[in-house]
Every structure is written in structure tokens, then in C-alpha cells.
């Protein structure tokens, strides 16, 4: 156990290639891209399934199917098919993001009190108004919990990007292991864990900010 790598100031220079801040930035970049693409795919699909009730079989089983797919295998499959680069990593990470968001969007809409939805329809809202002004805002807490668990998983899993030659904090783990530098491995593990906790905190604050205060008093 030694923290020398983590606290060595030369590893924190912003302009040095492979320094910890640079690895954090590339790590966050993969996480952001995967979350953005995954949400863009899973959220509309989840909302559609939850709103119409069509294809709910898909939404319920997406979670388990996604969990059982080994990300490392998918990543290496994509690299073998597409060659090295950002694209295969993004595909593998996006596949990881989709199930929790899809499932939580669906579950969020389904868990709503059906009388609220009926009331919204009763006061003359159109289907898309019901969805965006009633269902989606009320489903936000459940949806955000899905986004948060997706974010946690991606932050942790983005480390495998280093296994196929990309950057991100996995570099500290893989390179440190390759040269038996455990202080570097430990630095990588700590920074990733701190990053995961911080990201969850940011998302928790976002959740507080976007969820209607009216929904907060339930407990």
C-alpha cells in the first residue's frame, strides 16, 4: 500500500500526455459519450414502451440480458470486427448503458398512479402532452435512479478501454500491472472510485434540481 504515484506532483501536470488529469478527461469523455448515446437510444424507447404498454416484454428482460452480456467480450469482439479505435469502445459501453435506462424509463411510467394519467387525459391533454407534462416529470425519480446506476457502471467499466489500447483511467491499472507498479494501480483504483462517487453526487444534485418539489414529500 503506497500512495506515492497518486501524490507525485509530476503525475498531475495538465500538459503531460498520460498524466492523471488527462486520463481523467479522456475517461470522462468516454463516459459522457456512452451515456449520451445510450440515453438518446434508451429513453425514447423506454418512454414509448411505458406510454403505450407495447413491447413491455422487451423492457423487462433488457435489464437481465444486458447484465449477462460480458462487456470485455463485447469490447474485444467489436475491436476484432472494427479495428482499434474509439468506436468499438463506445459501442460496448453504450450497450451497457441502454438496459438500466430503458428498464427504469419503462418502470417509471408504469409505476405512476393510473388515475393521474386518466385525469390528465380527462382535462383534455393530448397524448404527447400527457407524456411530457405528466408522465415523464412524475417518472423522473425512478428514471434518474436508472441513469445513476448506468453512470456508475460505465465509470467503472470504461477502465477496460485501456485493455484495447485506449486512454482513460484504465491505463493506470493496465500499465501499472504490466510493470508491477502497484502504487500506480492503487492510484488508478482510487481515482476511479472517487470519480464514480463524485459523478453520482452530481447526478443526485441534478435530480434534486429537475424533479418537481411536489414529488419530494412522499416520505
Amino acid at each position, binding site marked *: 500500500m503506497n500512495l506515492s504515484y497518486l501524490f507525485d506532483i509530476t503525475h498531475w501536470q495538465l500538459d503531460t500526455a498520460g498524466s492523471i488529469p488527462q486520463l481523467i478527461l479522456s475517461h470522462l469523455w468516454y463516459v459522457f459519450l456512452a451515456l449520451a448515446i445510450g440515453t438518446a437510444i434508451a429513453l425514447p424507447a423506454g418512454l414509448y414502451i411505458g406510454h403505450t404498454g407495447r413491447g413491455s416484454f422487451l423492457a423487462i428482460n433488457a435489464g437481465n440480458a444486458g447484465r449477462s452480456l*460480458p462487456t470485455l467480450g463485447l469490447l474485444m469482439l467489436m475491436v476484432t470486427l472494427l479495428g482499434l479505435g474509439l468506436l468499438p469502445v463506445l459501442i460496448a459501453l453504450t450497450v451497457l448503458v441502454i438496459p438500466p435506462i430503458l428498464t427504469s424509463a419503462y418502470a417509471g411510467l408504469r409505476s405512476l398512479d393510473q388515475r393521474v394519467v386518466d385525469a390528465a387525459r380527462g382535462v383534455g391533454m393530448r397524448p404527447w402532452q400527457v407524456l411530457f407534462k405528466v408522465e415523464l416529470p412524475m417518472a423522473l425519480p425512478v428514471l434518474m435512479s436508472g441513469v445513476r446506476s448506468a453512470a456508475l457502471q460505465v465509470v467503472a467499466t470504461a477502465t477496460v478501454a485501456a485493455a484495447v489500447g485506449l486512454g482513460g483511467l484504465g491505463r493506470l491499472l493496465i500499465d501499472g500491472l504490466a510493470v508491477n507498479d502497484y502504487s500506480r494501480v492503487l492510484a488508478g483504483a482510487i481515482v476511479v472510485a472517487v470519480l464514480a462517487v463524485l459523478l453520482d453526487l452530481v447526478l443526485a444534485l441534478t435530480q434534486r434540481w429537475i424533479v418537481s418539489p411536489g414529488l419530494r414529500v412522499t416520505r
Partner: protein
Amino acid sequence: MITYLQNNSEVVLAALRQHIALALIPVVLGFLIALPIGYLGVRVPWLYHPLVNVCGVLYSIPSLALFVFLPVLLGTKILSPLNIVVALTIYTVALLARTVADGLRSVDALVIESATAMGYRRVRRLVDVELPVALPVILAGLRVATVANISLVSVGALIGVGGLGQLFTRGFQLFYLEPILVGIILSVLLAAVADLIIVLIQRAVTPWTRFAGSRA
């Protein structure tokens, strides 16, 4: 793919066997450890929230980081399967301790009072009444933990012990598709079979849940 399987059946079978052991031993160990911890989270109410938070943080540690770091902590060899088993046991406990606590908390207070009134003491009540009633919740958590473990084992291949994950790294190094595909398919199948087995066990040990609809 068939030719690959025919030519490498021994390698694949060995990888599969290792995968099953590496994934399922932690499930059993984790379950046994999580039971008392989860129970403690219910018996001592102020422990519940710290328990949930600690479990959340533990689960957010990247598996790769834990795999490479455990040898330093435990003094085991880097290639020892023990690292994977301990790491996955930690994840399983993190997942299940909370589920056990939630399951026990979900038991209707009336049920507990009736059991007490019928003369059940604390331990017998826990074993004969509370645990069985909490079983559907606990087993749902066990399904998640089992499936997650089976897919996590393969990350261990990056440190040389990863069951089917070794087929991934081999295919990746040789730029050869077949072993990767075989590994993914077997891993997903294994998860599906394990999940199915737990569902069947659940149906067998909690027959009353099948009539839940008619009760209300």
C-alpha cells in the same frame, strides 16, 4: 465456429468449468455472509442507512481495479483464482446484504406479531416465518448477483484468470473472432441457465407466491 469448438473443446470446457466455479462459489459465500449482515441492518435500525451507503460504494469499485489490487491487500499471487473469488464475494455481499435487509423489512408487521403471538421465539420466528416471507425479494437479489458475477468473471482474464474471459483475450491477441464469439455465447447461456435454476428453486420453495393474485 463449430470447427473451432471441435478443435478446442478441451480448452473451452476447462474455461467453462473455471468460469462456473469462479462465478458461483462467490455467490454461495456472499449469500452466507450477507444473511447475518442484512439481518443486522434490520435488527439495529440505525445501521440500515450506513449499510446501504457502504454497499453502494463497494459496488462502485471497478472490478478490474479490485482484481489487480486484492493481491497487494491479501498477499496472494496475482494469478491466484482466490483474488477473483474474494472480489466477486465482496460484490455479492454488497448487493445481497441490502436485499436481505430490504426483504426482511418488507415482512408485514402483522405477520411478525401473529408469529410472536403463536409463541415463536426470535430465532425460530426468523427462520420459520420472516426469512420464508422475505424469500422472493432475497432470491430476486440473488438472481441479479449471480448474473452479474457470471459476466464479471471474464474481466479477470485481463489478469490471467478469467474462465471464458480467457477466450476473449486469446481471440483479441490473435485477431480471431471464433473464440470471442464462443466465449460470449457460453457466458450468456450460463447466465440464462443459472437464472432459470434460481427461478425454479424460487417456485419450488415459495409456492404461495403463485397464488398471490387471488389473495387480494
